């Protein structure tokens, strides 16, 4: 296996499908050997962006560079991208070994390895994806996880410059998914390939990727490490899409945040006056001592979660509930009024739709 990754640079890429703008002015730089997730809800443009990088879609505007070399109009065959498709797109009529060998067999005669060399490479790849002895099977005889490994081996056979995966775990059940996630991480470490994968599953993106690109309606909302996205979300969309968050409608006036006639002590980061939304993570809300709470709520329900206790709190004087992860004495507090304070909160303008607004609209 080679140990070299290519850098990828995307400059102002845009693509329209009729009246629908799939990508609007997307710019992105990916470092050699990086593992990057393109995360977003359906219709956010993440798959379109992956296809532009692969050369399967030609962008209407903008450029794609592989190692500083303009590849925007490089035909897909010459890009040397290893692509793993959403439902694997294995050749049904070929054996597993023939599937893996395909990319080598179709090379021009000059670059084509000898038959024995191809057989050797196929064996090596089968071993690498832990499918030894299954070379003579047909894709229809394999499980979903095995098919995915074949798809990966087939993509790696051409010694790609980058590895692209479209929803690599989308069609698998939860347990296989977890195993394959860990395994993909290993593959990435072993090959050192620049790897980009598309997902709508934030857990997958956060667990696997070095950096996550959050896309929404054809635009990049934020690029950052999983920690940056979680701790310093750049927009109301990111905070509502990545991780859990509750939103309360507030008004901002001269740097002060008002909720239902009460002032909340939150840094507005220079947000201009007007309608806004304040977002809390469940883990950032705590039960305050009497008289020190910023808001008050009545405990509606308490339930066990794998991580601890999750309580649903109805905000006093307002038709809104909050979820908090905080140790509450169950028997004492159900139905009781408690003061709450928060360790962290983010305020964003109210006129920008967050993920929940978008999801409600679907």
């Amino acid at each position, binding site marked *: 296996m080679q140990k070299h990754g290519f850098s990828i640079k995307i400059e102002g890429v845009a693509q329209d499908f009729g009246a629908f703008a799939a990508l609007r002015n997307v710019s992105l730089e990916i470092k050699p050997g990086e593992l990057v997730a393109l995360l977003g809800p359906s219709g956010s443009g993440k798959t379109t962006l992956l296809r532009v990088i692969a050369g399967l879609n030609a962008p209407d505007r903008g450029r794609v560079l592989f190692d500083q070399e303009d590849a925007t109009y490089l035909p897909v065959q010459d890009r040397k991208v290893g692509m793993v498709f959403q439902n694997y*797109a294995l050749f049904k009529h070929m054996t597993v070994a023939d599937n893996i060998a395909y990319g080598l067999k*179709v090379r021009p005669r000059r670059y084509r390895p000898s038959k024995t060399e191809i057989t050797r490479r196929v064996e090596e790849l089968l071993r690498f994806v832990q499918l030894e002895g299954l070379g003579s099977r*047909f894709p229809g005889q394999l499980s979903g996880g095995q098919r995915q490994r074949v798809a990966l081996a*087939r993509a790696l056979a051409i010694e790609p410059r980058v590895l692209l995966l479209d929803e690599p775990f989308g069609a698998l059940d939860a347990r296989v998914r977890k195993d394959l996630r860990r395994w993909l991480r290993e593959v990435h470490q072993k090959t050192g390939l620049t790897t980009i994968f598309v997902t709508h599953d934030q857990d997958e993106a956060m667990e696997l990727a070095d950096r996550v690109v959050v896309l929404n309606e054809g635009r990049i909302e934020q690029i950052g490490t999983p920690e940056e996205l979680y701790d310093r979300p750049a927009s109301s969309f990111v905070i509502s899409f990545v991780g859990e968050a509750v939103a309360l409608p507030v008004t901002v006036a001269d740097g002060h945040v008002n909720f239902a006639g009460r002032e909340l002590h939150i840094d507005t980061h220079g947000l201009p006056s007007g309608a806004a939304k304040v977002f809390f993570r469940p883990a950032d809300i705590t039960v305050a001592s009497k008289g020190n709470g910023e808001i008050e709520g009545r405990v509606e329900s308490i339930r066990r979660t794998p991580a601890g206790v999750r309580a649903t709190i109805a905000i006093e004087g307002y038709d809104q509930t909050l979820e908090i992860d905080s140790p509450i004495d169950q028997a004492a507090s159900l139905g009781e009024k408690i003061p709450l304070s928060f360790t962290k909160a983010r305020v964003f303008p109210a006129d920008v739709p967050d993920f929940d607004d978008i999801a409600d609209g679907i």
Partner: protein
Amino acid sequence: MSDILISPALKKTSLRLCGATEDSAFARKLLIFVALLFLLLFLFAPLVVVFIEATRKGLPAFLASFHETDALAAIRLTLIVAAISVPANLIFGLAAAWAIAKFSFPGKSLLITLIDLPFSVSPVVSGLVYLLVFGAQGLCGKWFSAQGIQIIFAVPGIVLATIFVTFPFVARELIPLMQEQGTVEEEAALTLGASGLRTFWTVTIPNIKWGLLYGVLLCNARAMGEFGAVSVVSGHVRGLTNTIPLQVEILYNEYNSVAAFAMAVLLASLALVTLGLKTFLEWKYADALSGRSRRH
């Protein structure tokens, strides 16, 4: 069948339902009987008659019918027409199905409708259209006859009419198949470095080969058996522009029933072989389509 799906709680009512279907057992048997009788009378009996009539004056007379020069010419012409029109429609059908299944373009639904046109138009009408367009006084006919090329009442006209009538078979067979398969395997081949042509031969064709063969088979059966459209444009010149179906009609009108039925035996046998192959392909093709492993 239905009682398998009914939960035990509903068993009481289901028993009553079973009773209701049992009552109709007689009706069911009657329906099957009527259907079989119908098939026997209107399909099987005529087929048998064709073979009986052909050999009524003994096997030598039957075989002698094929030694007639006109008969041989008709067989040759039928084979030539099929040999041209089937490959032509194979290519047209493949191209049309490809365009419809793999691209979106304006006028796509119009194209789908047009492909079906030969099925909805009477073959006689399509023959007449060719007569008007390519006839001696027709739009294109004048130009062609000036070049010394005769189309109507000659082999080119018969080929054209046959191509028109048999156009939908391959395309209609492939469109749903290719639409279902989409373009993702082709895209995979392209990312692996295969050229467009290579992708076509190694990925597209293997995926549609059974459907393609099935369409070609039906197309061939129709091309050899077409009567209406060919009859209009052929001019019935013995030994020159008579195909097997036309020859059958001429011989029959001359009360030469043994020779007429002998020729009809050829067409009937073609139909039987086609039916047999079709059944085999349906079995094979269903297996290939289901995405499960293939038999070896």
